[in-house]
């Protein structure tokens, strides 16, 4: 499958364009890194790719068609702040199985302890919540997995283990990965291709001017 952003632009309300005419394409099986300084629009670009926001110009295509608007979405995004991505009035067990029922092996490899599932989100740390969010988004129907600063809040060892699990799964399922990070070393280590967001979003724009 092919996920493509075709000349997408975004701005919030009447402010200046955050980025304009950004184009990029991703294939299942690829692991692509996305680098860029903070505040340059990487997170917004990810939201557009996953269908969380509408583009002001251009379109996001999955195999040439617009993103599906019902059912389990094949493009899943992991947010930077897990505490906002879970309902504070749901216990962890309900949160994790909202889209599908994660199997025991996946819970083990993400090091999710079973007793967490009986707790409220306010009783879990950011790193623990993020692992729940990752498990939630890794249903078999997921074709593209977008990780926006997914492991920033974790210590180095847990970070390495979680990436190992997610990358193994991506490889065995032939899933496409987009990894957004400030961490150049992480991206160099796990990605097959690296995109600099400034070139992607402002490169063409600069030429036009």
């Amino acid at each position, binding site marked *: 499958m092919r996920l493509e952003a075709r000349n997408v632009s975004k701005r919030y309300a009447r402010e200046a364009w955050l980025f304009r005419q950004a184009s990029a394409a991703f294939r299942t099986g690829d692991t692509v890194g996305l680098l860029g300084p903070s505040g340059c629009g990487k997170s917004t670009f990810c939201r557009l790719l*996953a269908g969380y926001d509408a583009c002001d110009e251009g379109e996001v295509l999955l195999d040439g068609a617009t993103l599906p608007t019902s059912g*389990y979405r094949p493009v899943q995004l992991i947010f930077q702040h897990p505490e906002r991505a879970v309902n504070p009035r749901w216990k962890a067990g309900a949160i994790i199985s909202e889209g599908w029922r994660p199997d025991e092996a996946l819970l083990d490899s993400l090091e999710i302890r079973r007793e967490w599932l009986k707790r409220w989100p306010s009783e879990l740390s950011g790193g623990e919540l993020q692992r729940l969010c990752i498990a939630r988004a890794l249903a078999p129907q997921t074709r593209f997995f977008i990780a926006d600063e997914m492991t920033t809040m974790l210590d180095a060892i847990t970070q390495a283990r979680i990436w190992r699990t997610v990358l193994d799964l991506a490889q065995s399922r032939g899933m496409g990965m987009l990894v957004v990070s400030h961490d150049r070393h992480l991206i160099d280590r796990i990605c097959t291709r690296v995109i600099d967001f400034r070139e992607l979003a402002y490169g063409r724009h600069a030429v036009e001017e």
Partner: protein
Amino acid sequence: MNLRTRTLIYAAVALVLLLLPAALSPMLGGDRLATHLAERNEPPSWTHPFGTDWLGRDMFARSMKGLALSLGVGLTAALASGLIAGALGLMAAALGKAADRFITWLIDLFLSVPHLVLLLLIAFVTGGGAKGVIIAVGLTHWPSLARLIRAELLQLKSSEFVLVSRHMGRSNWWIATRHLLPHLWPQFIVGTLLLFPHAILHEGAITFLGMGLSPHQPAIGIILSESMRYLSTGMWWLAFFPGLCLVVLVRSFDVLAGGVHALVDPSRSQE
């Protein structure tokens, strides 16, 4: 004893205190409310715990009757206001921009008029008396709760976990019942409970000003306004006990609402 049991006990005591006037008032029948000119102006004693007034009426019976009446008015008014607030708040958040703008304007309009003036105007227009008071109090207590519900719903709708739920393939109905309602109903219940003391105090206030219930009804506002004339002659019990009862009643609602809030909030479940 953890906070949960303690909260439960507090809330139960508050509830009993609230129901007491309603339970007592039918038992304190006609005779104690009748005038006994031989027992005029008696200070508190065992036969008349709250004393008697200048016509020899038992103040305990009058206070309980008055509180029961106030509770009735408060209940009707709080329910009416709660329903209006809920409906308008939901409509503002669900029916799009034009409806939202209109309802926000309506809320601002109601909040910009001094509340007591609005109460007096509506009570006057609807003909005064118990009916006028109930209509006035019921029609004017919704704006702040409606605004709260609208804001809460708008914030929930754009929150990340609701967006994620949609990406998990969940329908609008599913999201409304599983994600939105569990957040809204505690706000709604606590908000409506907290309308009670407002409604009761406002009922007392307009009755005190002479625009509310008729003077022969033993409403708390009437008792207090009548006692004003006798305070200077040293009959302190005429205002003290009914006033204290009103404070206890209002405070009980506060405690009850606080207890409900603490019991349904998961982030406080371990305290």
